[in-house]
């Protein structure tokens, strides 16, 4: 089965990634992510703990938001295309927040090493909440096949 959804010749610098909207964030998702990731920091589960730690209330795992950003990439380009993804956690995600992942292509070049498809693209990525505040900013590199190579 073909995994590529977008091919190297289909994308250009400046091209925008389709947006991915996630949420509203519910406590149950944070609990489920804790179980799946092994990150049981009570700051994401226990409002009293989060308040005592000076954070006001529980907030989402940064890694859950990064998971959304990674999904936005693979939903567009295909699973297994991500060579590199790096983010900075710029703001807290609170219960009820709706997170919109966005991105655009900032560079494109033929592959320099084997196993990296026909070529690679660099993307600027970010995720924002319903108020337009950035909660994640980052960059990624994806390896894309040429049409007919799969």
């Amino acid at each position, binding site marked *: *089965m073909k*995994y590529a959804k977008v091919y190297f010749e289909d994308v250009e610098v400046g091209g925008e990634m389709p947006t991915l909207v*996630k949420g509203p964030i519910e406590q149950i*998702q944070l609990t*489920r*992510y804790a*179980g*799946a*990731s*092994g*990150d049981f*920091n*009570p*700051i994401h589960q226990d409002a009293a*703990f989060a308040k*005592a*730690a*000076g954070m006001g209330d529980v907030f989402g*795992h*940064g*890694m*859950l938001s*990064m*998971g*959304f950003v*990674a*999904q936005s*990439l*693979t*939903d567009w380009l295909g*699973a*297994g295309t*991500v*060579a*590199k*993804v*790096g*983010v*900075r*956690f710029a703001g807290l995600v609170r219960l009820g927040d709706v997170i919109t992942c966005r991105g655009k292509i900032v560079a494109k070049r033929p592959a320099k090493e084997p*196993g990296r498809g026909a070529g690679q693209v660099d993307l600027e990525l970010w995720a924002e909440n319903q108020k337009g505040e950035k909660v994640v900013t980052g960059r990624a590199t994806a390896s894309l096949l040429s049409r007919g190579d*799969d």
Partner: protein
Amino acid sequence: MPIQINTSIKGKEYTPYVVRVERAKIKDFARAVGDLNPFYLDDEVGRASPWGDIIAPPTFAITFRDERNDTASFLKELGTDISRILHGEQEFEHWKPIRPGDTLLCRGKVTDIYEKSGRSGPMAFVVRETTITDADNDVVAKVRGITVIRL
């Protein structure tokens, strides 16, 4: 009074640990993110893929942990506790897909520790890197993370 961080662990390399990748963990992780990509969840789609099995999502390696050296003991070694930490940055670099049944070796290192003042006061930044290799000693992935400690 701000707390003092034990900066002497800068450069410290941890005892490598082995992780065996479990099929159900990949699927639970993808579902917890709400990422229902069939290449992560559907065994038949995986079998028919170029990788011969389902693969892990790009951030799955965050689940790799050394049971003998958990987060609590790392924070204690640093001189802090879980109520003071925030996740600053995170990066994954991939060379090979991660599949069910893979036995991977993880080598972790504290690459840097520095302090600076942010909006909410003095903070320490602890940079860690884990290199993940497979049975052929090929690098599968590198994972870099920055933990922020509110001092």
